């Protein structure tokens, strides 16, 4: 079983410039990812960027259920949340 911290580290290492926060129970994960590289991309493209670095883990179902929330730094600030 993979921990939320491991998922967080994997995404962080492979997505340069991203701020990542992952919570979960080993089966279901929720990731918040903030990156300037998302600028100018729609949500589908933003999520595809994240899925792209997790291809192996998703294909092998090491990560089965992953819920994504992606933001540019500006969009993240506008939510008023802190990671």
């Amino acid at each position, binding site marked *: 079983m993979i921990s939320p911290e491991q998922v967080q580290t994997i995404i962080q290492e492979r997505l340069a410039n991203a701020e990542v926060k992952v919570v979960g129970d080993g089966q279901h994960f929720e990731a918040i990812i903030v990156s300037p590289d998302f600028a100018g991309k729609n*949500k*589908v493209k933003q*999520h*595809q960027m994240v*899925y792209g670095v997790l*291809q192996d883990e998703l294909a092998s179902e090491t990560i089965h*259920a*992953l*819920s994504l929330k992606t933001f540019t730094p500006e969009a993240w600030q506008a939510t008023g949340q802190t990671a």
Partner: protein
Amino acid sequence: MTPEVKARIESLLQENKIMVFMKGSKLMPQCGFSNNVVQILNTLGVPFETLDILADPEIRQGIKEYSNWPTIPQIYIDGEFVGGSDIAIELYQSGELQQMVEVAMAS
């Protein structure tokens, strides 16, 4: 993905303005994410068609390649890939999904 699978996907998308590839059926979704999408579309009160990918291994693999999207569920409106459960929730909350659906229904 074989040409046959691609043709099946394309004909499903052509025949159905709102098409959902999901785990389980509308009445009995087999996964919480698929259930989210069904509930949202039910709330919008629009007709939509679903395909249970658990019963169709070819489509299960093919649809992921078709959209370059590794997870299920997947929603298509007017033949365009819209997103999975997370994006559907965001679009629903912002009111955009309602608009997209209305445009599709009017077309």
